[in-house]
């Protein structure tokens, strides 16, 4: 190994030489500076190379050939090597971003940069307490220099505050060092850790001072106002260095002194870290300035890493490997994402300090820039496949193992807030994208791109390291990447590629799908392929759609084949991610996507805790002996995903605002994933659910309320997609209700309903997509009379609504029959009555849907529209055929369903020939179909036979209050179709869910608003915070 002393010598020599070399030209001098930083990186790589394949765990270097205590020791171990690499890499990236400013400013800027990075490297390497102080001061002083190098006035203001806090911290540290030396007798950390003197009363105080100083440098809440101001105001390159490199170095310093800390001190580290994580995220949610927001996020992440490091030791969560994996993973995630985002924020232009004026001044990013921003933002919030996802999983699992529920609540709650504001920011960026006109990538995008690539690379590596190696689980990302590469290709080609991907996935996964999984594969994979096909209905490449649709479809498939909790959760979050981006692609999807992803993540967190709390979860076989309550969390998480009443508020927006075909995919395919998991969870844990009867009954009522209110909301919508969205919510409510019945009849019902919902809701969404494409509006009252011009779509909608409403003879009636039979059989009479009411209400919106669009008076401008494109009508035709077959021969659908359910429950329903028999009644789908057809045919012929001289008349040829109307806008009865219903029952649908969550959000927001009042902007107040923080820390340490 290279002795790191040479590297220090190199850096110093380069710094001294820079003014001389500068005479040769700025290019030469900056080249020298960059080369020096790169040399550090190269050395770090060589260390890693030497350390990793099972070589010596660490290697120490004494200065001047002596060993401690006579010399300062430098140690290179895995964490040091990785830290050095991080500092050097961030340094190089930031230097690249700052290149232009560095070239303009005096050469002192480059020197300061070099010294700051060297100081950070020294912090990482040294094992000597005083030497640590020296390197901290070197990096601080160099940073003060850097802050001022490009003459930003705001940076000067912030820098002065920074210096004040840094000055206090360094005084504390010096006092700590000298007393640690006094009582421990050593300055070398490893030797001091073995000295008993450091653990006496006085020694503990000395250690406390060291700790307090380090913590302040790590910017704890509330003593971090100065740091936020710096992040906000300095060159984004420098922000990246501070947030990435400097934090890494200081966290490693904290890690270094942890052996000399007692339990009480570790506790305050953990507490302070978590408080910082929570409070900073709350305040971050209030920020409108991107860099200040990133600053808060930065501070929060560093707090979390510190807390995790302390908790690892305090609770014995795991060995060093665990710490590397979790704390290291979180740090790496933060480092790369934040560096990339800070560098990217330069491309967004200089935001002003006033929130209002700012939005206009931010520039739109190119598609590539947006994609990179997306990767970084998504990585930051801990979605797969990035390192933060894996680290968070391991962390929560370990915390659940240690039964630290409150910690889990704080961490996940704050993570959710962070996800909210980071993705809100990303959504705004994505929303600014120009629809037309392809802009080339911005200058300076290379740095963020590298960060994004590294983030993905490390994410994949950590996933593999955790044993998630199943290629099928990674298939969504492979498809995403592959299709993104050909994103400029025509849409039809990408559609075909997507379908091929789904087919290949299905082929590979086929052997691993048992009956239940095969059943769902039809809806999930088949549905995905169908919507990929339908996506051709709009011309042009439809950039980004196919990759995401394909990824979402394959993620659904991955959910089916996952065989471990982590594998499943990975697939689940992949699905969340892909569908979030799909919603965001919608024209006005920004707000809806944000709600979608926040609720999606919230549900996923519940799911994660539930999975983590049950060891050996995730198999279709009943598990006995486990704690029951985590299953409640799982069910709760799934209810969020399914859009149960109360947590449904994301649903209408997400389904309505995404692209028209995507809405169909979300509603008819994707929502079934939640049903699948619910079935698996209930099958495995149905026996251990606490208060089983009560819980299931409550679940049933939740489903019922969802069904009823979904239908009630649907009838008042003017927007056709909103109607369908609420309708989807209601239909899923029935599925939940049926699942809660929890016997053979109930589950048969649930699966049958789910499959039917897939069929008819696909038909509806596809037909409506065609209508919207042709008429160019989503408001139903702006349509009318389209039956003449779009008869096929009308037929499709007609069959779908007959099926949805449950009118015989189509298969929807089977669902109703099954539902009431199983409810009555179970003795859930009131439930049956409410379900009946809900399905009657469904008639209202269904009739309104078909009437106001296809019947009534056509608008003159729409009298020449064409039938929907073939890409839409072909799938609809196929679905119609399936629906008819399934209606005439119910056994086609019910035999497989009952086969699956038969593995779990004793039979209640059985077939006698074509008659389905329940203990209460019977239903012969084939016979009733025949009777209906014959009767209908006879009536039809009767009508024809007696029709004399039929005369088609023109529009408006009606008798209307003794005049002939001439305006369709006033003759087409469409707007506010159910006004009397609103008058009678409107009080039920006053959006209480939305209001509750809005109030909740306002509450969280105002907590953040209250907290941020501590950041007054006054440097002296900040200094006072630092002092008070130390005092509070001391008192807490004493109290523990």
């Amino acid at each position: 190994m290279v002795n790191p002393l040479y590297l220090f010598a190199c850096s110093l020599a380069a710094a001294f030489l820079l003014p001389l070399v500068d005479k040769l030209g700025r290019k030469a001098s900056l080249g020298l500076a960059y080369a020096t930083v790169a040399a550090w990186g190269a050395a770090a790589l060589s260390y890693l190379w030497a350390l990793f394949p099972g070589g010596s765990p660490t290697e120490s270097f004494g200065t001047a050939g002596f060993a401690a205590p006579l010399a300062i020791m430098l140690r290179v171990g895995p964490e040091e090597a990785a830290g050095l690499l991080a500092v050097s890499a961030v340094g190089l990236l930031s230097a690249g971003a700052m290149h232009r400013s560095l070239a303009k400013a005096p050469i002192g800027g480059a020197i300061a940069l070099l010294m700051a990075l060297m100081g950070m490297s020294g912090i990482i390497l040294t094992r000597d307490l005083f030497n640590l102080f020296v390197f901290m001061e070197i990096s601080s002083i160099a940073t003060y220099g850097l802050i001022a190098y490009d003459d930003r006035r705001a940076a000067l203001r912030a820098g002065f505050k920074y210096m004040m806090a840094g000055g206090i911290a360094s005084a504390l540290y010096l006092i700590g060092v000298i007393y640690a030396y006094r009582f421990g007798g050593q300055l070398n950390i490893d030797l001091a850790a073995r000295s008993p003197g450091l653990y006496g009363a006085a020694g503990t105080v000395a250690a406390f001072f060291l700790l307090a100083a380090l913590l302040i440098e790590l910017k704890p809440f509330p003593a971090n106002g100065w740091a936020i101001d710096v992040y906000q105001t300095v060159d984004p390159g420098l922000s990246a260095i501070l947030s990435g490199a400097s934090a890494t170095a200081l966290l490693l310093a904290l890690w270094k002194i942890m052996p000399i800390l007692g339990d009480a001190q570790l506790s305050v580290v953990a507490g302070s870290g978590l408080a910082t994580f929570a409070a900073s995220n709350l305040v971050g949610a209030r920020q409108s300035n991107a860099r200040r927001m990133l600053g808060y996020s930065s501070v929060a992440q560093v707090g979390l890493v510190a807390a995790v490091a302390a908790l690892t030791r305090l609770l014995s969560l795991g060995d060093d490997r665990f710490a590397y994996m979790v704390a290291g993973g979180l740090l790496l995630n933060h480092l790369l994402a934040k560096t990339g985002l800070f560098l990217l924020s330069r491309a967004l232009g200089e935001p002003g300090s006033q929130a209002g004026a700012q939005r206009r001044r931010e520039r739109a990013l190119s598609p590539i820039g947006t994609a990179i921003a997306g990767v970084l933002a998504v990585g930051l919030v801990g979605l797969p496949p990035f390192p933060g996802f894996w680290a968070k999983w391991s962390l929560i699992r370990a915390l659940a193992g240690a039964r630290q529920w409150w910690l889990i609540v704080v961490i996940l709650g704050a993570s959710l807030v962070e996800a909210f504001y980071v993705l809100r920011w990303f959504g705004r960026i994505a929303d600014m994208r120009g629809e037309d006109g392809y802009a080339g990538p911005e200058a300076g995008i290379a740095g963020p791109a590298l960060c994004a690539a590294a983030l993905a690379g490390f994410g994949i590596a950590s996933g593999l390291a955790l044993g998630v190696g199943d290629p099928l689980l990674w298939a969504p990302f492979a498809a995403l990447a592959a299709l993104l590469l050909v994103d400029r290709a025509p849409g039809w080609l990408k559609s075909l590629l997507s379908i091929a991907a789904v087919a290949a996935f299905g082929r590979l996964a086929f052997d691993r799908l048992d009956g239940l999984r095969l059943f769902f594969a039809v809806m999930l994979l088949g549905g995905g392929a169908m919507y990929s096909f339908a996506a051709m209905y709009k011309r042009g490449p439809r950039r980004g759609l196919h990759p995401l649709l394909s990824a979402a479809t394959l993620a659904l498939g991955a959910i089916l084949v996952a065989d471990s909790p982590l594998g499943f959760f990975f697939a689940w979050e992949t699905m969340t991610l892909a569908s979030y981006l799909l919603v965001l692609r919608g024209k006005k999807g920004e707000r809806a996507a944000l709600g979608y992803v926040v609720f999606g993540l919230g549900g996923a967190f519940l799911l994660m805790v539930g999975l983590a709390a049950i060891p050996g979860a995730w198999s279709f076989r009943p598990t006995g002996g486990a704690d029951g309550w985590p299953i409640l969390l799982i069910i709760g998480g799934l209810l969020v995903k399914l859009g149960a009443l109360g947590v449904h508020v994301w649903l209408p927006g997400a389904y309505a605002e995404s692209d028209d075909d995507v809405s169909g995919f979300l509603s008819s395919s994707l929502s079934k994933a939640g049903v699948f998991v619910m079935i698996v969870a209930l099958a495995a844990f149905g026996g251990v659910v606490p208060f089983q009867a009560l819980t299931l009954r409550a679940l049933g009522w939740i489903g019922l309320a969802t069904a009823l209110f979904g239908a009630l909301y649907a009838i008042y919508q003017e927007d056709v997609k909103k109607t369908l969205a609420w309708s989807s919510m209601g239909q899923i409510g029935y599925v939940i209700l049926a699942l809660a019945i929890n016997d053979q009849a109930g589950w048969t019902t649930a699966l049958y309903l789910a499959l039917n919902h897939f069929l008819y809701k696909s038909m509806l969404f596809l037909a409506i997509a065609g209508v919207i494409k042709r008429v160019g509006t989503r408001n139903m009252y702006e349509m009318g009379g389209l039956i003449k011009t779009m008869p096929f779509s009308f037929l499709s909608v007609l069959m779908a609504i007959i099926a949805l409403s449950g009118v015989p003879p189509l298969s929807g009636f089977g669902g109703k029959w099954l539902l009431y039979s199983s409810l009555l059989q179970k003795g859930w009479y009131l439930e049956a009555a409410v379900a009946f009411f809900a399905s009657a209400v469904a008639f209202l919106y269904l009739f309104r849907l078909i009437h106001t669009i296809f019947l009534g008076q056509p608008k003159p401008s729409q009298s020449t529209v064409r039938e929907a494109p073939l890409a839409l009508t072909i799938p609809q035709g196929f679905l119609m055929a399936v629906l008819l077959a399934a209606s005439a021969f119910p056994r086609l659908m019910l035999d497989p369903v009952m086969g699956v359910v038969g593995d779990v429950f004793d039979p209640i329903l059985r077939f006698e020939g074509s008659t389905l028999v329940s203990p209460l009644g019977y239903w012969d789908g084939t016979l009733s179909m025949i009777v209906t057809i014959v009767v209908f045919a006879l009536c039809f012929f009767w009508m024809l036979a007696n029709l004399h001289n039929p005369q088609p008349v023109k529009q408006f040829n009606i008798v209307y209050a003794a005049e002939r109307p001439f305006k369709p806008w006033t003759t087409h009865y469409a707007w506010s179709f159910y006004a009397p219903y609103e008058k009678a029952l409107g009080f039920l649908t006053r959006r209480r869910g939305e209001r509750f969550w809005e109030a909740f959000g306002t509450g969280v927001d105002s907590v953040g608003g209250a907290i941020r009042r501590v950041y007054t902007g006054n440097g002296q107040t900040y200094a006072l915070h630092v002092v008070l923080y130390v005092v509070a820390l001391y008192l807490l340490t004493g109290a523990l």
Partner: protein
Amino acid sequence: MEPTIIGRIGYAFVSLFVITNYGLLLIGSMARISAKVQGRVGQPVWQPYIDIVKSSAKRNSIGHGAMFYLGPVFRLAGGVGTYMFIPAVFGSVLFRNFSDSGDLLLVMYFIFFGQLGMALGAGEGGHPYSAIGVSRGLAQMTAFEVPFALSVIAVAAQYGTLDINAIVAAQQGGFAHWTLATNPLAVIAAIVAFLGMSGHNPFSVVIAPQEIPIGPPTEYQSNLLGMLQTNRAIFNGAKLVLYMNLYFGGATNIVAMVIKTFLIYFVNVFVGQAFPRLRTDQSIRFFLGAPTLVGIASVIIAVI
């Protein structure tokens, strides 16, 4: 002896013929009774026949499109189908119809078949009154279905079956076994719902002759109107038979059926003559109020 399939079809036609004529006469006689109550002479009892013949004999037929023509077909098929799924006379092979297609649930949902098709056909007519009528009708329907569903649930819970034949069988053996005697609350809820279903006063906003002249069928004429008029008879008959089967012990012969259904239908006229019309929102709130509570009580009684 089990009849052959041809025989069953033949029986079904006979059964249908009987119920059609009975339904027409019932409507005619009720109209006459109403007239007497109001102090008028009224129409002859056979007026419905005259109406149908007159409509069907019209030389011209105005059409607004395919669905407009199909509307009455749906409507009539709905009426006939509903009747076909109900056993009209207990134990009679002739009046068994095709009730082995499904149980009570099938009948309850098949009722919607004709209403839906009719609403669609009327919708294509393009007349705003049609749409308004449908809107009112559907809105009112959701409300009166609640007490009706509750009462049906009570019956199903009481007899432990949804099979109409079995429900009738359980009520055999005299008045004391009728649902009317064993669970009167269920019958009250169902009868109130029936008032809504029949669309007489006070629940007649759907066809409200004064404001939206006859509502949904307003654009229909000629043969198409004739079909609607025919359906009205059959559909009424079907519903009355259903009520008789569920609550009034069914009928073991055609005479008992005629008497019982006449009396059930008479309730409509009786109430209809006594009360003015409610607004849609009023009737919705009405049905979801007291009748629903009665329905819930009937379920509770049935369970206990």
